[in-house]
Each structure stands twice: as structure tokens, then as C-alpha cells.
């Protein structure tokens, strides 16, 4: 019997499968009109062709579970876990469905209310005891470097032992970048002052007026007694990232050099911990909350104008601190104030009229847009604007640009199957543009793409290209 708006007698109602702590909001769920425009944007639907592995299908399942028409089952958990959280569907949706908020409310529900298998728990435990801790990562990186340097990897792969590892461990092994020992042990200096040359003129050519910090305003006072050095254009607090600072120290160094060359004072607190992005995107809400509070505590006293981040995944979480801590009376407003200052490095650079002269970089770059930048933060044009400041640089878009590369935080470790398919697909699309190098604003994408390109092409953060252009050196 077909019944409009009817339930079905086949599925027994078991009472809501979600608990009362921030279940997906019925209002947000009802925004979905089931039009299906999200389907072609979704990587897992593209791979499987399955309705339940599409955003529309996942919203449908959330609705059924919310209304108690279906329990939180292993099937449901599997389909939610399968979601990369790339948020391409949010960009594609004409009805303005906030799938990002929906899936982020479901993930902690799963962590609280679903008993994962012992091996799954153990593997996730390993990831979350390693990646958010730069010190442990450094140790791992040293072992990793030795492992590669001493030819253990080659020896192991000859024995065929690597192939016999469980898929997830194999993914972890394959992702390991070639990190020079030196790089793994480098740290970003706590304070780097702006390069002062040319700063005087910068104040006039500036487009948007900078939010002035107390220190900056004092320095600009024309009636000041001594000819003080010109004030920095911005006082910038820098989030150094966990994977970023260990595996991609050179990206942080480039960021500091470019920002200071553009007239910003850069403060990178040494004591800053993980921002909690990995935890939050995996539904480990409590961990994320603790880390968010700590990071706010670290940056608040610095009184910076802007908090800059060069990791798209971290940036998307930092900008959501207000929502994450909405229930915390002590931190709510502070979190909102913090989030309001967060900018991706490309956003800040696009705001600042270039001050430091750029040298030509005659090369063809394939630009891979990180999902957490373009879909989660809506930052699409700024990286292009910044790269356009480099003479003779040819930046090309990749076919299927909106499709995730499969990295998605720790997704490529937890779901190696689909992540590999997406990684190969992305690598093929990159090769189709015949570039000299690839740029992308997220270390996860960097690792994933270089792995699937078999490390045949240099893969860089856009800020490294700008840095090379300013210094007049070859970027790779």
C-alpha cells in the first residue's frame, strides 16, 4: 500500500537511536527536499552508486534514526563513517542544507552510542594518541626516516611482508613521506618581526583597513617623539599544526617568511597544542572541546589582530570554535571572538596588497583545492589571487576539481579502500593537466596526492611558491 508521508510496517520502531546531546536538528534535516543535486558531488556516491552512501541518503537515515523509525545499526554507522566530510555537497546544494552541521552532530553520537569492534577501537586509539601530539609525531618521524634511510622499507617490500599487513596499517605505511631528519626536528621560532622595509608606503596602498592592535596603533602615532620603526601591518598569531610542523616544517617556515616579508609580525606560541580538528571531524567531541579551550587560552593573551593557519582542515575547525563551545558559558564568547580572528593564510595574503617584490616562477602548477578550504570555509578565490601575484606562473584547475582526493583528515587511514580509489582518480586528473608541480593548502592532501603520484611530481603548499618567488629561488 502506498501511503503519502507514511511510515512502513516492516521496520520496527525502537525509539530514537541518538541520545539527547545535540542530535541532528530536525529543522536542519527538514531543509533537505530530496532533489538529489548533491549526488554527483559526493565522492562515495560516485564510487558506489548507492543511495545510502550519498548525502541525500545519509540525511534520510539520520531522519529515520532521529524519529526512532530505525535503530543506529552497523549499516548506518558504516554509511556515516564512509562519509569523507569533504562537504562538496554543501557547495552543490541549492536548498542550503547544512550537511556539515548534520554529519558533525552524528559523529559524536556514534562515538558515544555505538560499540566499535576491538580492532577498530585500537586502531582509532593509535591514531588519536599519535597525530595530535607533535612530540610523539617527531619520534615517529625519526623512526620513519631511519626506516626509509636504512632501506628497511625496500627490504620489507621485497619480502612481501608489507602486502600482508592489514589494509589500514599498509595505508599508514604507504603515506609516510620522505622527511629529512633535519626537517622533523625544526621548530617555528616563537616571534619573528615584520620586515620593515617599505612598510611606510604600505599603509597607504592597503586596501581593507587592518584591525589595529594596541601595539600597532601606538607605533603609528605621528606625534610620537622618536622616529620609531613603522608599525607592522598586522600582528599575526600562527597556528602551527601537528602534522604540518613535523612533516612539513618547510611550509611553516615559508609561511613565516612570506608573512614577515609582507609586513606582519608573527607570533607562533611554542606551547600551543593540537587544535582538535582531527578529533572533532572524527566525532571525538570531548577531546576536541578540551583542545579548543587550551588553544584559546594560549592565543587570547597575545592580543593578535589575526590568527593565521595554513592547514585547511585545522582552519575549518578553528572557525567553528564558537559552535563547538556554544554550551560552555565560560568559553562561549571567547570562542566566538577567537573564531572571528581566524584566517587561512591565503585569505590574509589576498587582503594585503603585495609589498615584497615577486620574482618570476616560470612553471605550470596544477591547483588542487582542499575540500576543507573550498567547501567547508568557502575560500575559493583567495589562493588563486595570491598565486596570481607571481609573475610567469601558470595555474591550472584540475578536472573534477570539486572531488575529494580521499585524504579527508584521518579517513585515508581508517577507510583505506575508498581513499585509495579517490587518490588514484585525483592523481590521474592531476597528470591530465601535465603540470610541473601541484599545489594544495592542506598537509593531508599533500601526503595523499604525492603518494598516489608515486612522488613523481613536487607537491607544495601555495605559500611555498609565493615564498620562493619573493626570495627569487626555485620552489622545487
Amino acid at each position, binding site marked *: 500500500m*502506498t501511503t503519502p508521508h507514511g511510515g512502513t510496517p516492516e521496520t520496527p520502531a525502537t525509539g530514537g537511536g541518538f541520545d539527547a546531546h545535540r542530535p541532528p536538528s530536525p529543522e536542519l534535516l527538514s531543509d533537505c*527536499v*530530496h*532533489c538529489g543535486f548533491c*549526488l554527483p558531488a559526493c565522492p562515495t556516491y560516485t564510487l558506489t552508486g*548507492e543511495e545510502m552512501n550519498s548525502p541525500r*541518503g545519509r540525511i534520510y537515515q539520520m531522519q529515520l534514526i532521529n524519529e526512532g523509525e530505525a535503530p543506529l545499526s552497523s549499516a548506518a554507522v558504516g554509511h556515516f563513517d564512509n562519509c569523507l566530510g569533504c562537504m562538496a555537497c554543501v557547495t552543490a546544494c541549492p*536548498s542550503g542544507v547544512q550537511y556539515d552541521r548534520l554529519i558533525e552532530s552524528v559523529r559524536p553520537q556514534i562515538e558515544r552510542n555505538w560499540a566499535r569492534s576491538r580492532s577498530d577501537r585500537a586502531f582509532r586509539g593509535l591514531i588519536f594518541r599519535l597525530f595530535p601530539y607533535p612530540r610523539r609525531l617527531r619520534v615517529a618521524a625519526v623512526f620513519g626516516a631511519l626506516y626509509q634511510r636504512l632501506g628497511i622499507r625496500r627490504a620489507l617490500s621485497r619480502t612481501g611482508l608489507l602486502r600482508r599487513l592489514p589494509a589500514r596499517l599498509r595505508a599508514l605505511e604507504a603515506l609516510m613521506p620522505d622527511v629529512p631528519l633535519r626537517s622533523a626536528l625544526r621548530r617555528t621560532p616563537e616571534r619573528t618581526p615584520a620586515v620593515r622595509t617599505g612598510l611606510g608606503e604600505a599603509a597607504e596602498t592597503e586596501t581593507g583597513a587592518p584591525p589595529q592592535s594596541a601595539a600597532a596603533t601606538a607605533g603609528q602615532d605621528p606625534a610620537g617623539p622618536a622616529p620609531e620603526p613603522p608599525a607592522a601591518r598586522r600582528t599575526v598569531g600562527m597556528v602551527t599544526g601537528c602534522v604540518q610542523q613535523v612533516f612539513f616544517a618547510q611550509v611553516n617556515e615559508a609561511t613565516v617568511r612570506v608573512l614577515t616579508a609582507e609586513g606582519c609580525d608573527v607570533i607562533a606560541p611554542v606551547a600551543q597544542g593540537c587544535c582538535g580538528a582531527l578529533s572533532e571531524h572524527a566525532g571525538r567531541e570531548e577531546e576536541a572541546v578540551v583542545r579548543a579551550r587550551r588553544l584559546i587560552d594560549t592565543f587570547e593573551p597575545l592580543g593578535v589582530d589575526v590568527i593565521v593557519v595554513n592547514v585547511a582542515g585545522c582552519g575549518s575547525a578553528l572557525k567553528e570554535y564558537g559552535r563547538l563551545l556554544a554550551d560552555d558559558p565560560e568559553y562561549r564568547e571567547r570562542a566566538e571572538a577567537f573564531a572571528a580572528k581566524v584566517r587561512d593564510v591565503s585569505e590574509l595574503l589576498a587582503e594585503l596588497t603585495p609589498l615584497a617584490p615577486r620574482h618570476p616562477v616560470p612553471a605550470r602548477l596544477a591547483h588542487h583545492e582542499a575540500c576543507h578550504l573550498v567547501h567547508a570555509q568557502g575560500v575559493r578565490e583567495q589562493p588563486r589571487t595570491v598565486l596570481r601575484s607571481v609573475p610567469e606562473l601558470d595555474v591550472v584547475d584540475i578536472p573534477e576539481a570539486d572531488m575529494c582526493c580521499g585524504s579527508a583528515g584521518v579517513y585515508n587511514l581508517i577507510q583505506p579502500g575508498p581513499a585509495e580509489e579517490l587518490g588514484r582518480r585525483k592523481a590521474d586528473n592531476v597528470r591530465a593537466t601535465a603540470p610541473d608541480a601541484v599545489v594544495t593548502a592542506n598537509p593531508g592532501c599533500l601526503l595523499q596526492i604525492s603518494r598516489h603520484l608515486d612522488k613523481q611530481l613536487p607537491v607544495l603548499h601555495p605559500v611555498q611558491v609565493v615564498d620562493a618567488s619573493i626570495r627569487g629561488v626555485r620552489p622545487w
Partner: protein
Amino acid sequence: MIDTVLRREFEAALGTESVLSDPLQLRTYECDGLTGFREVPALVVLPRSTEEVAAAVSLCAKAGLPFVARGAGTGLSGGAVPVAQGVVISLARMRQVLDFDPEDRRMVLQPGVTNAEISRIAAPHGLYYAPDPSSQVVCTIGGNVAENSGGAHCVKYGFTVHHVTALRVVLPDGSVTELGADAPESPGPDLRGLFIGSEGTLGIATEITVRLLRTPESVRTLVADFPTVEAAGEAVSGIMASGIVPAAVEMLDSLAIEACEAAVHAGYSLDATAALVVELDGMEHECDEQFEKVVALCHEKGTTNVRIATTSDERALIWKGRKAAFAAVGRISPDYFVQDGVVPRTRLSEALSRIAAMSGAEGLRVANVFHAGDGNLHPLVLFDEGAGESERAERLAAEIAEMCVELGGSLSGEHGIGLDKACSMPEMFGETDLAVMRQLRAAFDPDGLANPGKVLPTPRLCGEASGRYRPHPLEEAGVIERL
């Protein structure tokens, strides 16, 4: 009823990863783009080839199971709603381009390829696929064949039936046959034409040959604002009467404009009561000359502002706004029905005033966005299910469709009859017409297993008293026989 033995047979034929039977997974297939109708299927299968579709259909035929083919599930008439205890055959994994001959301007596709993908693949060769339903980024060519889909540009270029030259289909008994041919015309009855638009009731198309058109040398697009819907309607009539064949003439009223702007920021004027999107394409000199005429006509009919797209990006944005309209209405209303009906172009203004009156009488808002060039209306009835307005909305939507028939038009322009309008079919067709349709259907599907309950009204579906079988006059005359 599907038992474990039968499920295993499906799994053996298609592979376990291609058969879904988990209750929650099945429920995600219980409706298509029209969520008002829902039915949980007993099984969903996801074949990858004609052979696998044939295997699945054969199993259904053997067990007497009804089956429903499904593309992307974007249909707006409930055409892909499952049948209770039946099988859904999802074609979403059949996404291969089987052959592409740019010189011959021909492409052979599996049914799950999206409409937009065809043009994307053809583009480097200066070719495109003309029918362009607004859901083209997601809707599939298989679904287009089932619904005989049109789109904004069908006023000049025609519907799916004009662009699909051949079909490989799996008939409801599991056998495979070819309909049509590479040549544009083949002798004998046009079974290909019959199949296109049959909404999955005659079988499943598994290989679809489409013809491609050369990308026009020049495309010119404008948006003209009008102070009244009537003035915009007159401009449409004026354009058509002038002998110009526009590539597209679309109209949006103020509610539709508001929704589109909220979703896409395409630059439509929020203060216009009606906006016309007019596109011309063809040879450059001809296009330019006619475009000037169109602009003059719009001014003559009292346009308040004409915006001419200066770049291809701007044109794309105008179309993105227009094509997102249905779903965008979700931003200004919790729920809505998309209606689809056709009126003679000369009666557009009359139809719109009557819709406005009906909307006022029911106390529900109606947004209008439609293919004005061929009188294909898409009134969107806005309502709030939570506020108990759904019954009134359903009634209003049905009244609008029936008004279209009364004005000498049609129940559906391109979204199909499906489940939604099957019961309205007697408004448009007499008993004899419907009997012929049933006969035709039975010739392909004597057991009624292919998408039963769709298109043709049934007593069970429509609450009619089930009468005695009445033979068709041709049957009585001995011209045809009942199968």
C-alpha cells in the same frame, strides 16, 4: 515475497555487493524526488551491464515479482517509487560511455550517465546533447528516456525522443531487444518512440544511442524584468509571433526570483514582478540581428530593465540560477510540490491569473518558474507539512494540473505521470484512449511486472470501483486482440 533462496539467486547472478537487503538501506530507496509517496522495496539490485539487468529481470519474471527501474531518483512524479514486495533495479552503477563517434555525432551510453556528463564529454569536439532538464547535473539519460525529458531549450530543439535514435532494452520477460536504429528513420511502427516516455512500464533501456549537435557559433542571452506577469507573457507571445525561434524562453515570477537569488546569487532583480530569460543561438550575424529585435520587443512590452550576458560565465550563472529554482524554493518554504502542466502558449496569462486566484483561495503561495516558450508551466505550491497544509497543497497542485487540461493543454510537460498523476489521466483521456494504452502496455508486459501502478490509473490506486473488463471497440471489431 522474497525469501533467502531467491535473494541468493540474485546474489549469484549479480554478486553479493550488488544486492541490498538491509532494512535501513532499503528505506533510502523508498522514494524519489517526490517524497510524498513512499514504499519500501524488498530488494535493491545494482547491475553493471545489460546482461546483469537481463538476469535480474528474468529472476523477477520467473518469480512474478514487480520491479521498478531507478536512475538518480530525481523524478518529480513518483515514477521510481518502489512497489511493495518488489525489486528496485538501480542503474546508478551503469555509467559507462560505450561508444563515441564525434564525426558521426553519436554517443552510445549506459543509462546511468548523467545528462550533463554527455555534453561535458562531447564539448572538446564542439558537440553537445540538446535536451537539458534543469536537473541535468544529476538526472540520468536512462531517466530522461523514461520520462521523455525536455528542458529549457526544447522549445527549439525538441525532447529526448528527438535525440535518441536507438535503444537496447531489456523487456519485462528478461529478453533483450533493439529498438530504432542508427538511421534517423526506420520502417515500421516507431517502437523506439513508443518506448521513450513510457516511464519504465515497457522495460528497461540499458544502452542508449544519442545524436549530438554542433555547438552553436553564437549564443546570446538576456534577462528582461517586467512590472507584471501579463506584460512578460505578452513579450513571449510577441517574440514567438515575430517568427524568431528562440533557443529558450523562460519566465520566473517574483517568488521564484527570490528563491533563485537566495540560492545562487545569479543577479536577478529582486524587485521585478516577472523576469524573462531569453536565449538565441545560431550563426553569429543571424543571432545578433534577431537579438536586437528581441530587445526591442521587450522594451515595446514595457520591460523595466534588460540585462545582457556579456561573458559565458555570466550566461552560465543566469542558467545556474534558473536551473536551481525548484530546489532553491526549499529556502523560502519548508515544503513544496512541483507541478508540471502545459497550456497553449496563447493562454499563458489566463492560466497564470487563474493560478493566482486558486492560490489566494487556498491561502497557499505559488511560485511560478516555467518554459514560457512552449507553455510548459511549473507552478511550485509552497506549504508547511508541519502546519498541516499538505492536503490543501496536494489539492491545489491537482487543481492546477486539471486546469491545464481544461485550457486545452496537458497534465504533464516533461515530469511524467508516474504515481502522482495516474489518477488524473481520465481528466485528459477517455476510456477508449486509456484502454488502448493498456493494450499497448500489455503487449510488452503481459504480466504487469514493469513499474506497475504508474502512468495508467488502476481501481486500487484511484479508489475507483473495479468494473467488469470492457473490451476495446477495436477488439470488438476483431482488429486487435487481448493478450
